[in-house]
Structures are given as structure tokens and as C-alpha cells.
């Protein structure tokens, strides 16, 4: 029998990044009510993302999208045992301060909400709570990590049910990582300049061949097959936003996507869980969205 002999350290990078490590191989589901959070937990979600409107509704209703009401977040925290995440606007460090005191487990500094600052992201090192941020390419991912993000999700195009942007972003990020691993040091200096990212991070990735934080995929995942494809493309896990609660049978679809992520490389299981799920979210093709309404271009 022994005792601990040193002070406890809170909010370290290891602790922040560590929670994301534990979420790997899992599905994080957008929920807008405690009742949806219950369905998500029962279906096997590894965490829930508490927000006021799912991206599909933000898209169709328009207006400024902000952090959720603290009452809503409290009700979701009270409902479930799994980790609860919530979204703050890009650059809105006070929304992040609020979410931290509310006791959520992770903050998503998210392009799905209306940006609060078109120049700066939140200085995430200032917080004990960890942050996840979106990225469309490696440079963006590394800038977020440099600001203190403890987890990255490729952005995709939220609220569409069209997985093509998610595919593009995860392929881009992993392709750029692969390219770095084949470079000599003199080339890495140039790569850092081109990626607009710190040389130290670029060099680290060139030697390890992976991001120093967990990489999930998000934005447009609507079916078990979509989720499994993201996993086969190298995602550590999947965020599903509108795809579950904008579909005909959320309970069954949520459970099916969870199984498809665990057995992402087994087409027999994916085929089986894909049966009889009812209507998927209707969705919109990303190519039909006029440029000013693309969410993935927010963030810099």
C-alpha cells in the first residue's frame, strides 16, 4: 500500500489530449435537448455535443448562431454520464469561460456558429478545459494546435448530409502529413512557411507521421457507411451532427453508426447495420450551396 507523494496537476496538455484519446473509435453526437442526449447515450455515443440548433437548422433558419443557453447545457449534463461537449463561437473567449464554469468536458470552437472574431481564435492555453477545433487542411490544424487545441476534427460541411467535403478534408490532412514525412529538413522549413504553421510542429509531424492530437472527422456524415469510410480514411472517430436527429429513426441510426465505427473495416457488419434504418436526413449537395453560406471557410 502506498500513497501519492506529489501535487496534482490539472489542465496539462497530457490531461487535455488524453480525454480525446479515450474517445477514439467512438461517435460524438449533436443533441439539442436532454431527451436527445438520453437517446444518444443509450445508442452508444461516446460523448454528446450540446447545442441549441443542429447545423441543418442553423443553415435553414439563418441568423446569428451562438453558444447555447446555460440551462440547456445544465439539463444535458444532468441527463447523461458520458462526456458533454459544447460549442463556442470562433474567437469568443467569454463564451468559452462560461462553458468552462458550467462544467462541460470539452469546448468546440466551432465554425458552425457565427464567428465572434474574424482575425483571432481563442487562446486555448489560457483554459483548464480542453478544446477541439475544426480544420480543412494540415496548416489550419497546426495553427489550432499551436493555439492550444487538444483535439482536431476535419470540418466537412456541417448540416448538409453530404459527406464529400468531409472526405476532402480528411484526405487533405492525411495527404499533407504523408508528404511531410518524405521531406528533408531544408524542405521542411519551406513546408512550414507554406503551411503557415510553426516549424517545430511541422518537424514533429514529419518525424512521427501523425498529428500530436486525436483527429476526428465531422460535417456531413449521415449513414453507417459514411462513418466507416471516414474511419477507413484514417479518422480516429466521428462526429455526427444533423445526420441522426434529422433522420427518420434516430435511435436505430445512432446505434448503427456506433457499430459501423467499431467494425469500420468489416463490410458484412456495416451491411447488416445499414438495413432498415428508415429515411436518412434529406440533405443538400454542397455544390448547390452559394459560397457565402459555406461554413467550412470560417476559421483561418
Amino acid at each position, binding site marked *: 500500500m502506498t500513497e501519492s*507523494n506529489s501535487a496534482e496537476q490539472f489542465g496539462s496538455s497530457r490531461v487535455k489530449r488524453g*480525454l480525446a484519446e479515450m474517445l477514439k473509435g467512438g461517435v460524438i453526437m449533436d443533441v439539442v435537448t436532454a431527451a436527445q442526449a438520453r437517446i444518444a*447515450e443509450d445508442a452508444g455515443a461516446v460523448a454528446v455535443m450540446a447545442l441549441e440548433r443542429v447545423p441543418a437548422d442553423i443553415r435553414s433558419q439563418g441568423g446569428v448562431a451562438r453558444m447555447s443557453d446555460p440551462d440547456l447545457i445544465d439539463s444535458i449534463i444532468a441527463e447523461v454520464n458520458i462526456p458533454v461537449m459544447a460549442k463556442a463561437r470562433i474567437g469568443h473567449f467569454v463564451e468559452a469561460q462560461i462553458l468552462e464554469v458550467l462544467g462541460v*468536458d470539452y469546448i468546440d470552437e466551432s465554425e458552425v456558429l457565427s464567428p465572434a472574431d474574424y482575425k483571432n481564435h481563442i487562446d486555448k492555453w489560457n483554459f483548464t478545459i480542453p478544446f477541439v477545433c475544426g480544420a480543412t487542411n494540415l496548416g489550419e490544424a497546426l495553427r489550432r494546435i499551436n493555439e492550444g487545441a487538444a483535439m482536431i476534427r476535419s470540418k466537412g460541411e456541417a448540416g448538409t448530409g453530404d459527406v464529400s467535403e468531409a472526405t476532402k478534408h480528411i484526405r487533405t490532412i492525411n495527404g499533407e502529413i504523408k508528404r511531410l514525412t518524405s521531406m528533408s529538413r531544408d524542405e521542411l522549413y519551406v513546408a512550414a512557411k507554406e503551411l503557415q504553421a510553426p516549424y517545430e510542429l511541422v518537424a514533429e509531424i514529419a518525424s512521427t507521421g501523425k498529428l500530436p492530437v486525436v483527429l476526428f472527422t465531422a460535417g456531413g456524415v449521415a449513414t453507417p457507411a459514411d462513418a466507416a469510410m471516414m474511419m477507413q480514411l484514417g479518422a480516429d472517430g466521428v462526429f455526427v451532427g444533423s445526420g441522426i436527429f434529422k433522420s427518420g429513426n434516430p435511435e436505430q441510426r445512432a446505434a448503427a453508426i456506433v457499430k459501423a465505427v467499431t467494425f469500420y473495416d468489416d463490410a458484412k457488419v456495416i451491411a447488416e447495420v445499414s438495413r432498415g434504418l428508415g429515411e436518412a436526413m434529406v440533405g443538400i449537395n454542397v455544390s448547390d450551396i452559394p459560397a457565402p453560406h459555406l461554413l467550412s471557410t470560417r476559421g483561418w
Partner: protein
Amino acid sequence: MTILSVGTRPAETPVPAGLRVGVLALQGDFREHAQVLRELGAIVDLVRRPEELDRIDGLVIPGGESSVMDKLARTFGLAEPLQAAIRGGLPVYGTCAGLIMLADTILDGMNGQQSFGGLDIAVRRNAFGSQTASFETDLDIPALGEQPVHAVFIRAPVVETVGPRATALATLADGRCVAVQQGNLLGTSFHPEITGEYRFHQYFLQKLVAAAR
């Protein structure tokens, strides 16, 4: 089975060759465990299906979300054969969610959450609170060597009750138990697999897996 025989310096004793260890790969940080086990010389199988239990000499249950592991294990028919294997003496090491899965009793679990069981303990899920209460600290565990174990607790469980058949291996300063052993079963609230701490895995391979084979 002796508990962490005093004076053992695992780093100086090689792990026997040819040990085949499964890592439960339903969800969580199973790749980190697989990496540590491989570096220690074990052959590693990722386990998601019942038949994959047949050829392994030991099993590691990783960190992750215990309620998700529970659901998937039951849905895909893994829970019952694994419980039978544990009863039959299969050495198993669980970290965090893995510790919960090995506990006979779960406190603060989800409605209907089940564990595989085997350890005569009651474990409280998420005992420290939300993620901002997650922390790292050093634990003295002399039997693993003089150097303290650097332990990372992430929304971690604690062992609230240690039953007569289980033995506490480590406690926090406030006395709460965070590591236990009972025969071939080992569990920690914390995550050696993400801190470069190899001694628990080494102990598991040498003292439990190799001995039981």
C-alpha cells in the same frame, strides 16, 4: 498468486517470448496499449469478436467509455465468452474504463450498465467530476521500483470498496484506492499506456500472463 513481490525490478527481467496478448478493441485507446505490449515483446491481437478470445494468453481492456464497451460487447456476443474466460483464469489488465469493466459492482453507472466482473470491488464511475478535475500526479508503488509511477487520471473512476478477495496496490494522498489486483486480474484507475510507463504492462506480462500460460 503473490502480489507485486518486493524488490522486483521488472525492467531488468525480460518478458518471455511468444506471449500472445489481446487488446479489447471495441472503443478507446487500444492502439496505445497494443504499442506498449509490442514494445515489450508480446504478440498483440486486437479483439472484437468472441472467436478472437480463443488463442490469447491474456487480455488488456483499454481506457475509453465503459458504457459503450459494455453495449458493444453484449451486442456482438463477446460479453459471455469473456466472462467465462475470466472465470477460467484468463489474465486481464484493465485501465480506467477497463477497471470498471472488471469490477463486480459499478456505482454511478448508466441505467442497466453491466461489467464483465471478476474483481471483488465496487468502482465509482467518473469519481472526480468533469474534465476540468482530471489531473496527473506521482504515485509511490515501491514494488514497481523506486521511481514513482506518473499517473494520469482522466474522468477517472476510483475503487470505493475493496472486497476481501482483492488487494489494493496504490492509493491517492486522500486514501482513495486507484489500483488493485486479485489473482490474475489487475486494474488501474489511471493510464500507464499514455505516459510511457511500461512497468504495469511488464508486470502483467511477467507475473500474470507468463505464469498462467
